[in-house]
């Protein structure tokens, strides 16, 4: 029997994936464990291995095409099996019953169409996947024409990305009534249109344009699409509010300087952010609701403190943002945290973080201090209930012990989910943080 290689679910949130690159071609022999493709998920690009020995009979999913988790991306002929026959065999998704093949040369399968049941829908679609022709259900095609919906702008939600009735209805609703279909303007220039909608979710709406202004279209990468979707979700669903506090940074900077000098030989270089991570993590012991998630009818207090660290990717490499995770940060020393954050940063900027590196954050820190930003606010990284935005430690006039003097200060702003955390709770957390940051020897034990 031909073996189907399906789009794997590489993360909890992954619904679709893109084969960025095939490392094999039809006819190649592969061994179990061999990497055959790079798969771009909503979070990272990962290597996909096969679990069987065999010969590649068919590459169902072309490079660059986004398909749903579970859809067949390649067909493998088992050792000794005829590769051509395997290639023409129906690609059955999951555990579905055998379906008749579309060609008479197909191997013998049950002549009767299996009674319709759940997963079989995917099968026939998988057979039909080739080329670039959009798959559209007949009624969806007719409705698109009647309602003036441009099929090229619609993402299909049916099996194999088939555009079905509800996608057209949604597209028409999103676009707003009575707006003409996207105009056939210049290929890469967006034609001006007076209609506007909030297309920030990267959904199915047509391109936004500014009247009288020519614009260049930049395709949205998977990562950019995920950032857009998740942050729109976060801002729309989470009742955000912010609470700020300034911390005196003199002591922490002095201690950091001393430690870095003493540990220079060991190539340890602690950053201010490493101290903040440790401080945030330790404060969780007294403030469990900052390490929590809103779950609709209850709140989940996470029993592990995993601090997410926002990492900006270099613009010359396409930019973007990922969150690396320091697990059990409350149980790790400054030195361990520092080492892990550095490794995560380098990995993110070079080959990319793995799913393991990015999953499981229970609280997130975003720090723009290194760019000289004095303060800013961040959007909560779901399912967290809070995020801390740190500015730079800045030397400035301050009042200490009723005296005007020069000191170092850093502004920190918490963005909070009001469903989980109230204002006074936020203030108390910041007080705890202030205590730890301003008396940093507490961070050493």
């Amino acid at each position: 029997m031909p073996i189907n290689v399906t789009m794997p679910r590489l993360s909890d949130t992954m619904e679709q994936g893109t084969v960025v690159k095939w490392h094999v071609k039809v006819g190649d022999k592969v061994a179990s464990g061999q990497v055959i493709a790079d798969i771009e998920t909503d979070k990272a690009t990962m290597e996909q291995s096969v679990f069987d020995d065999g010969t590649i009979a068919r590459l169902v999913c072309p490079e660059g095409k986004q398909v749903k988790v579970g859809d067949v991306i390649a067909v493998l002929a088992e050792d000794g099996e005829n590769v051509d026959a395997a290639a023409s065999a129906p690609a059955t998704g999951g555990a579905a019953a055998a379906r008749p093949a579309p060609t008479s040369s197909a191997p013998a399968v049950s002549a009767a169409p299996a009674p319709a049941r759940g997963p079989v829908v995917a099968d026939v679609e998988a057979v039909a996947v080739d080329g670039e022709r959009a798959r559209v259900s007949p009624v969806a095609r007719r409705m698109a024409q009647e309602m003036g919906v441009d099929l090229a702008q619609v993402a299909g939600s049916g099996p194999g990305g088939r555009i079905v009735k509800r996608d057209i209805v949604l597209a028409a609703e999103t676009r707003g009534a009575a707006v003409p279909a996207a105009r056939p303007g210049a290929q890469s220039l967006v034609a001006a249109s007076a209609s506007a909608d909030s297309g920030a979710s990267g959904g199915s709406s047509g391109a936004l344009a500014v009247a009288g202004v020519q614009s260049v279209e930049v395709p949205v990468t998977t990562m950019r699409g995920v950032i857009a979707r998740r942050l729109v979700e976060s801002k729309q669903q989470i009742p955000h509010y912010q609470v700020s506090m300034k911390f005196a940074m003199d002591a922490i900077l002095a201690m950091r300087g001393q430690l870095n000098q003493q540990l220079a030989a060991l190539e340890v270089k602690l950053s201010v952010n490493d101290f903040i991570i440790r401080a945030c993590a330790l404060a969780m012991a007294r403030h469990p609701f900052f390490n929590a998630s809103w779950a609709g009818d209850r709140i989940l207090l996470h029993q592990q403190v995993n601090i997410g660290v926002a990492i900006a990717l270099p613009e010359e490499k396409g930019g973007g943002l990922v969150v690396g995770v320091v697990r059990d940060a409350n149980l790790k020393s400054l030195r361990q945290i520092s080492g892990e954050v550095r490794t995560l940063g380098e990995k993110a900027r070079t080959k990319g973080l793995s799913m393991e590196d990015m999953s499981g954050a229970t609280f997130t820190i975003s720090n723009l201090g290194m760019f000289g930003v004095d303060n800013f606010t961040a959007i909560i990284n779901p399912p967290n209930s809070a995020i801390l935005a740190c500015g730079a430690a800045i030397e400035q006039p301050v009042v200490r012990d009723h005296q005007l003097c020069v000191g170092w200060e850093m502004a920190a702003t918490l963005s909070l989910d009001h469903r989980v955390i109230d204002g006074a709770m936020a203030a108390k957390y910041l007080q705890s943080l202030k205590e730890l940051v301003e008396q940093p020897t507490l961070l050493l034990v």
Partner: protein
Amino acid sequence: MSALREIEFRDALREAMSEEMRRDKRVMLMGEEVAQYNGAYKVSRGMLDEFGPRRIIDTPISESGFAGMAIGAAMMGLKPIVEFMSWSFSLVAADPILNNAPKMLYMSGGQFGCSVVFRGNDGAGGQLGSTHSWCVEGLYSNVPGIKIAIPSNPYDAKGLLKTSIRGSDPVFFLESERMLGNKGHVPEEEYLIPFGQAAVIREGTDCTLASWGRPVHFCMEAAEELQKQGISCEVIDLRTVRPLDIGTVVRSVRKTNACVVVDQSWSFGSPGSELASQVHRHCFDDLDNYVHRVHSADVPTPYATNLEQEYLPNARKIVEAVRSATYNL
């Protein structure tokens, strides 16, 4: 008063036959045990007493013989009703019922019609095993010249059987042992139900369920369950598969854009596949998904209760098919 009258499916059949026999002296009933034993399933109870042995005739166990005799009688102007204890047994009478009855008018150049009704139990009766559980509509609907009625309830059974008896063509009338005891409203006043008129027995907006005979009840069960899940089904009881009221189904599918056909015969070359094909043809631009079909499994009918249940169409399979057809998996 009569609006409230509820009778069993078997009584509706008997009323239809008796009324037509009182109305037309040419009508007669023959079959195994229909007279002295009052019918193997008590459909013809009391008919021997009323109509006597010349019109209610016990036959030997020889379907080929008495089916052929009925056809000959019909050619000579009588209007026989033949009861097959099970349609499974009609297979031994294949030549008279398939090769003679439906072709007689054509082959005689219009000289001999063949006004005969063959009726009996069709489909799995409940642990009757592979050879006694036939759904003969899968085979017989392929033959031109036959009318096939497959009622799902007492009201339709009576109205359709009277129409069958009065007509001038051979009719295969398919009942179900599992439904003979079903009660339903049947008015006392006379009525007939024309062939080729489907009934929309539940209105809905999201998916059309088209069926006939016993599986109609499974469709209603499934529609009830699907309603709870937020999927609204329109259920159509075709009532006759030849002629097939495609118009009613098409009107419904144009509204719902999705269709599931439920047919308890096997899937390959069945009335269900024919209906699906016609829907694809007439509703091509109206469909949001291919027409899904629920049939009996493509194996001989199992004897074991659990296997037989799993073999037949049931509400769970129908729910799954509708969810698939409407992209609600």
